[in-house]
């Protein structure tokens, strides 16, 4: 009987401890977020929010533009790879090799990808830091994610879709493009949003590819000019790289405020995309029955 009672006691204690730990971590993560946002609000001033001089508007623009460029590269490559794996690769050893490669690429430390980008896109092309090099390196990091999402999405589509399309006389490729891909687009979109969110926060990939500074003029929209925001061959620091750069070479008197504000904007961007992807996912689940 005694043993029984101590077991019950242990159960109660363990439950209490587990509640405590769960609450502690939720509180910790919440306070980190609130702290960042609070410091960001404190630091915000019209001067720092502007698109010139010290303002982090430049970095905000760079972050979004770089991630956008990167997705232009990531999405087609990732989607084609995913389609190949889901529909054409079969079950042989080739798909096992590709799967291993994707797994490997997706778990590389981002600094390694950054160094590879530095080697190939900067050193071997004899160019200076530039946006395009950053976007390409970021693409390497995100291609596995899109490829896997696409493959999963296409595999989850009922077999009857495929059979129906083939029975109507389409080829396999036509089926892939017009039926399977179309049905998987929402799920792939979720992956794309995830990839974007990851891109916003990534810094180690970018410090040696797109560089740690930018010198642009928002009145100059000629894409071939080196000070134009649109020129992909100019150096560009994103919000996250900006925080790192301030830590390593911050000399301005208000560098602390700049970093606080950058961190807050970064968090808002990442959270917005993360919540967006969740909302999309929920929406899809709700509509799944109607397809």
């Amino acid at each position: 009987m005694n043993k029984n009672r101590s077991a019950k006691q242990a159960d109660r204690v363990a439950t209490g401890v587990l509640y405590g730990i769960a609450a502690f971590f939720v509180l910790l993560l919440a306070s980190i977020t609130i702290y960042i946002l609070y410091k960001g609000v404190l630091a915000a001033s019209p001067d720092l929010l502007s698109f010139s001089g010290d303002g982090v508007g430049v970095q905000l623009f760079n972050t979004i533009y770089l991630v956008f460029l990167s997705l232009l590269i990531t999405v087609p490559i990732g989607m084609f790879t995913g389609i190949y794996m889901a529909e054409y690769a079969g079950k042989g050893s080739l798909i096992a090799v590709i799967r291993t490669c994707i797994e490997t690429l997706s778990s590389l430390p981002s600094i390694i990808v950054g160094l590879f980008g530095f080697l190939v896109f900067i050193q071997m092309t004899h160019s200076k830091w530039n946006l395009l090099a950053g976007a390409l390196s970021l693409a390497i990091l995100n291609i596995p994610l899109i490829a896997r999402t696409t493959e999963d999405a296409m595999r989850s589509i009922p077999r009857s879709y495929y059979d129906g399309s083939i029975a109507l006389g389409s080829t396999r490729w036509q089926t892939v493009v017009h039926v399977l891909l179309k049905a998987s687009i929402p799920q792939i979109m979720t992956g794309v949003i995830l990839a974007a969110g990851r891109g916003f926060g990534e810094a180690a990939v970018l410090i040696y590819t797109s560089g740690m500074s930018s010198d642009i003029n928002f009145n100059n929209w000629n894409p071939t000019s080196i000070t134009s925001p649109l020129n992909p061959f100019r150096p560009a620091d994103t919000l996250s790289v900006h925080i790192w750069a301030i830590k390593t070479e911050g000399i301005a008197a208000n560098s602390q405020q700049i970093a606080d504000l950058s961190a807050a904007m970064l968090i808002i961007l990442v959270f917005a995309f993360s919540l967006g992807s969740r909302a999309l996912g929920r929406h899809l689940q709700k509509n799944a029955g109607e397809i």
Partner: protein
Amino acid sequence: MAYASDKDFTQKRLNQPLLNKKWRTEYAGRTLVTIFGIFIILLALTILGFLGYRGSATFLNYGHSVAEFLFSTNWNPGEAGQSGTVGAAIFIVGSLTVSGFALLIATPFAIAMAIFISDISPKIGSRFLRPVLEIFVGIPSVVYGWIGLTVLVPFIANVFNLPFGFSVLAASIVVAVMIFPTIASVATDAMQAIPAEYRDASYALGSTRWQMVWHIKLRSAMPGILTGIVLGLARAFGEALAVAMVVGQSTRFVDSLLSPTNTLTAVITANMGNTVNGSEYNDALWSMAFLLLLISFGFIILIRVLGRKRNEL
């Protein structure tokens, strides 16, 4: 064009559009996606090849032995044209200590969180805690580094009465918070994948919830939990910026948790840009990058082995 016979001509005309059409509707697309499938393999091989090539210069051009690189603590590589010593043991041990200690902090909490979500309160778990974990996986590492730098480092300096708070402890805590959601998510998946019969049978035998969790669930979910731990370790080991911001970056062998040191990732990040390309210093950094790559391959293999074990269960 001349044709040998009328029959030959008709045959060609019949075949041509058909092939053309088949090419347009099937083979072109198939070729396109196959190229990208192959491209992924080439990309992975290129990364391995290039980093291997750059990383080998320390040993091939400067004649250092691999043993010196791995086990010597003499870090004094030459700048352009000069030659020195390239012992990277300080950084290797630094990386191992920081990530090992971070794992030690994060794992018990992560497993506790997984138990809470899967068995104590699945309702709060799935509605609230899972989304929270997923969101926090996405917080950029520089942000963690920045909070570590502005909050944790001064705090440690205060509590332990140090001139600076930059230390292994600061780095480990920052990394632990970073990898906690990763380990917790994977461990939760593993716990939830255990068939309900296990739980029911255990309850039927009269065990309490804690006995059921401790003796049955944790044990059966172990390979999955280990996968989570290895994933966390891999992330900790490869994390560059957050660690570099708080570890102190001093070339000094770890002698206590409160001493500053340096890690592989931090030393690469900080110095790759200000060393001359092709100098001994620069080449030694590339060797470290290659070492980092090999270690992350090791983690991938480990995860595969664990995955196979999970499938056997």
